[in-house]
Each structure stands twice: as C-alpha cells, then as structure tokens.
C-alpha cells in the first residue's frame, strides 16, 4: 500500500495543477476532489462528526462546482477556497441545529445560547496550516512547527535543529507565504 502523497504547489507559492485545471477544465471537479477531498472530509469529520461528514463534503464540492466561475487562483489557493466553503457549510449546519435546539429549549423553558463559530474557524485554520506544512522536508517542518508552537527564537531553533539560521528563516517565510495564500482563498469563499 502506497501512502497518499498530497498535491503540493509546483513552485513555492505558485498555483497547483489542480488550481489551473479548476478554472478551465471541465473535469476539474474530479481533480479537485482527488487533491483535496481527504482534507475537506477530515475537517468535516471533526466539525460535524463522522455520520454527516460525507454529506457535508459532497455539498462542499457541489457548491464549489456550481460556483467555479468565482474561483480565482490569483486571489488564493483552491484548498483555501474549498475549506472556506466547508467552514460555511458547517456553520450553516450548526446554526440550523442551534435553532432547532433553541426552539426545543424554549418549549421546555430552558434557553441557552451557544456560539459555535470560533471552534469551526480555528479548526479550518488549523487544516490550512497543515496544508501549508505539506511538502516541507522533515527538517524544515520541524523548524516551522517550533516557530509556530514554541516560544523559541529563530536563533534558538537554528541551534536546536543544527540548521543554518538563513535556512530556518526561509523555511518559516515559505510556510507563512503558503498559509497566506490558503487564507486568502478561504476569504474568497466568504465573498
């Protein structure tokens, strides 16, 4: 069994073949699904649970397909855009469930408001951070993860990883650049 290898940008911050295809290719939906279906589904499993994850994933890709004219690879990444659509679908689903709960609770005299947005936003962001880390070498990934989740300085990371300071800085900069592109793609899904 060969482990899946995720689609990565063909250049550091460039568009992927799946993105180019999505704008022009009539079969781009399949390419997008093969490239990013697992990421979207993994997000949905966490956000709405395993029972509903497949249905929400299907809604995400169908919505993306119906709105494909709005996707612009120059404005952000495809995976970011898909994750933005997924986040909105999940929030819609939560809001509908919350409305139902509120009605039930009102009927029973108990009213409790729940704000579900923040965890879903954070989860979507975490998925996009993971996408930004994809394709980094193990060495680069370790440096970047230390930068993200430790209070170590770049100099300390360079010493800890026995890596030149310039390499540590460029690895972090590359990951942040990729992440910005994913986040920008996510924002275009809200437009």
């Amino acid at each position, binding site marked *: 069994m060969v482990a899946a290898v995720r689609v990565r940008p063909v250049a550091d911050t460039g568009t992927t073949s799946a993105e180019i295809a999505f704008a022009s290719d009539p079969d781009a939906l399949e390419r997008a699904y093969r490239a990013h279906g697992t990421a979207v589904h993994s997000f949905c499993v966490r956000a709405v649970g395993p029972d509903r994850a*497949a249905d929400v994933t299907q809604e995400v890709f169908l919505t993306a397909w119906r709105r494909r004219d709005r996707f612009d690879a120059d404005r952000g990444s495809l995976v970011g855009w898909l994750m933005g659509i997924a986040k909105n679908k999940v929030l819609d689903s939560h809001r509908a469930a919350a409305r139902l709960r509120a009605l039930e609770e009102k009927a029973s005299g108990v009213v409790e408001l729940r704000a579900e947005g923040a965890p879903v936003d954070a989860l979507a962001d975490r998925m996009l951070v993971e996408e930004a880390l994809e394709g980094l070498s193990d060495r680069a990934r370790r440096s970047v993860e230390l930068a*993200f989740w430790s209070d170590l300085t770049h100099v300390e990371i360079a010493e800890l990883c026995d890596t030149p300071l310039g390499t540590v800085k460029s690895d972090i900069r590359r990951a942040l650049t990729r992440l910005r592109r994913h986040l920008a793609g996510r924002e275009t899904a809200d437009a």
Partner: protein
Amino acid sequence: MPERHELDPRSSDDELLHGIGLLDPEPAPVVEPPADLWRRISAAAASDEEPDAPPDAAPAADHAARPESSTHLAPVVDLASRRRWPVLGAAAAAVVFIAAGAAVLLGSGDDPEPVSEVALDALVDDATGGSVELLLDGDTYTLRVDAEAVPADGEFLELWLIDGDVTEPRSLGRFTGAGDYEVPGDIDPEAFPIVDVSTEPDDGDDSHSGASVLRGALEL
C-alpha cells in the same frame, strides 16, 4: 453572530505566528472519505450540467465503467481536458489507449521523439529547478532531467512518476543528478504525468517519503 477567530492573511508575520500559536498543535486526524463519495458527487454534478440528458444516462455509464480504486481513475483525470463533462469512463479509457498507441507509432523513428518538455520546479532551498523532457524512442520512454538537488543528511534522492491524482507514486530508481532516466515499460507517462524527485531516508521503506524536492507535470 459568534466572535470570529480566523487568521488574517494580511497580518504581519508576528501577528500570524501569534494566531497560529493559539491553534491546536496537533493536526486533525486524516479521515479518508467513503469510497463511493466521488461517484455520488460526480453523478450530482453531472445532473447539474446536463439537465436535458436522458435521466441517469450519464451517471449510469460512469458507474459501470469506473472501478472504486483511484488507481484506475488516474488516466481519466489525465486526459480530462480533451473531454466534455460528463462523458467519462470507458470512452476515456479508449482515448488513453489510442493516444498511447499513436505515441508509439510517432516515436518509432531512429531518433528519440520529444513528447513533452516542462519546468521542474525546486520545492526546497537545496534543489535547483530546471526542466524535464519526455522522449520516446521506439516504445521506450526516457526522462531527460536538467535539474539538481541535494539529499537531506543520510538520505538519497529518488525519481518518481506520479498519477494525476497524486496517490500512486511509481519509482524510477535513484536520482543521481541531471541526465537520462529510462521509464520502465509498465509505467505509462500518460497516466503518471507528474515528475517528482524526493529525498528518501535509507530505511528500507520503498514508498514515497512525502518529502519532494523537485516537481513538474508533463503536458501530454
């Protein structure tokens, strides 16, 4: 309206790093979608696209011709731009077959026939991007690579062709720098158009490490 905690792509590096630091360091577990989900999506999208088509005609053909395994779907993706949605499956397989046959005929001369030349992009600092050319000599494909990379410490470089779904890397052996690399006869570049060089730990595991250093996609 719930308070939003999204990362902002316009933030400074420091602000972005701070925001990332508030996220869970552990990534969400990877959960593959159910095997039939793509069929459901493609059938629904097809009915979107062709409202006048006979009911269920296109999706039915799709289902009949498409096995579950993504391995078998790869050639369909590869020639996607030559087809119109939702004509899928058997027709596409036939096109692959015919195209491959035509390529063999075209390449039967004495000199290697250039089939495709594309950029090979460096994905890490330790690599120098360049180009890769696919040549056909008789019925033998060769990759002519003009790019360089340095393996990570204690690792070696390996050359791969990967399917359009990027799920099934096929090894062409060790990558020793710019030069010609013969494509084994059981690997069809039409179905495996992505040229990839990875750095591999010397651990006896012959699967792709996931750490790619050079990448390009042949245009076939």
